[in-house]
Structures are given as structure tokens and as C-alpha cells.
């Protein structure tokens, strides 16, 4: 149970990031450590200047999905970024940017939101992951 939960975030749409943030918060609530590894389009969403921007939804959301997501947000649902901040506040959540994706996107570490703890390679992520499951979103 104390093996960490390890999430690889690849998709950068708000719905998938929200789902990942909620999974993270649940594990943090139980005292289970969480390692989050940001790759590709998910990493792009963690830029400081656009973390609170609209990152769109997965294609399967469609128009009805967009309406439903907007309604929940308007009703006061916390953003995924806020949910991750809360999860970090109550538990052990380490968020690392994939160094290869940093190069791919041409991002400097200073451009990332402070919610990101650092930049590392895939090997360091696997070492942190230990024998815990790795979930790819």
C-alpha cells in the first residue's frame, strides 16, 4: 500500500489532467506517495504562463462533453492545477518534468509553474516509481 502511485501524464487536455489530479488527490489523502512525470502535451500545459488557460478537451468529449465540463467548472469545481496544489498540501506528491520533453518543447525550467518540483530523465522516474504501478494518461 505504501508503494507509490506513479502517473505519466502525456495528454494536455483539461479533462485528462483533471482526472489525473483527482487520482493524485485521492492517493495523497491516503498517505500514499505520488510521482507525476510530465511528458509532451501535458508538460506544455504546466507552463507558468498558461497553466490556468483553456487546454481543450479530448476529442471524445464532443459538444455535449464541453457543455458538461463548463457547467461543473462554473458551479465551482476546482481546476486541475488547484487540485494538484491541494494534493501537494496534504500529501507527498512529486511532480517532475521529463527532460526530453523539455528539449522537444524548447522549455526552460524557469518557465514552468512552481507546482513542478524539477526536471529529470526517465531513469530517475523509474527509480522513484520503485515497484509501484505506472499509469499512463
Amino acid at each position, binding site marked *: 500500500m505504501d508503494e507509490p502511485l506513479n502517473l505519466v501524464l502525456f495528454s494536455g487536455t483539461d479533462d485528462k489532467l483533471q482526472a489525473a489530479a*483527482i487520482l493524485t*488527490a*485521492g492517493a495523497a*489523502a*491516503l*498517505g500514499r506517495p505520488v510521482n507525476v512525470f510530465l511528458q509532451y502535451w501535458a508538460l506544455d500545459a504546466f507552463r507558468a504562463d498558461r497553466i490556468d488557460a483553456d487546454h481543450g478537451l479530448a476529442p471524445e468529449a464532443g459538444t455535449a462533453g464541453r457543455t458538461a465540463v463548463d457547467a*461543473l467548472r462554473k*458551479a*465551482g*469545481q*476546482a481546476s486541475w492545477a488547484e*487540485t494538484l496544489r*491541494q*494534493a501537494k*498540501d*496534504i500529501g507527498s506528491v512529486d511532480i517532475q518534468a521529463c527532460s526530453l520533453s523539455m528539449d522537444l518543447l524548447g522549455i526552460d525550467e524557469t518557465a514552468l509553474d512552481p507546482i513542478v518540483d524539477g526536471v529529470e530523465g526517465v531513469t530517475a522516474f523509474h527509480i522513484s516509481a520503485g515497484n509501484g504501478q505506472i499509469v499512463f494518461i
Partner: protein
Amino acid sequence: MIETAATTAGTAITRTIDARGSYCPGPLMELIRAIREGQVGDVLAVRSTDGGSRVDIPKWIEKAGHRLVALETRDGFDEIVVEKVR
């Protein structure tokens, strides 16, 4: 919002967390924060309109080693009362 009140069972509540309008897992996270800030023996009530709370919060209370004092369904929301044991 923090207020002082008493349950219908008569247990003195140290603090009430009004998490109504907050979505899963917001109410639990607010409760965890309040428990961390409180003292052993404190009795905390959390109010939630999120349907998951009445399932999740008692399970969390058991796992975290605290004591579920009451789970009441009120007018449009649930109130879960917990004693901080450790």
C-alpha cells in the same frame, strides 16, 4: 466558513467545515487540512453536497485511525462528524 455548533446527538463540535458546493475530492481535502490543524480530541463536522463524501470520508476516517461520530443526511447535504483520535 467556520462555525461552532452541536450535533443532534449532543456531542460538542469543535469546528464545522462547510464544504458545500465543493466537488470530489474537495470536501475530504478540506477535512484533512482541518484535522491536521486540530488537536487530539477535537470533533470536526464537515458538510458536503458531493455524493461521494458519504462513502469516501467514513472510509478515510477508518483508514486514518480517527473515529466516525455521526453521518447525517440534512436538507440537501450530508454532515459527517469525526473525532481526531491521533
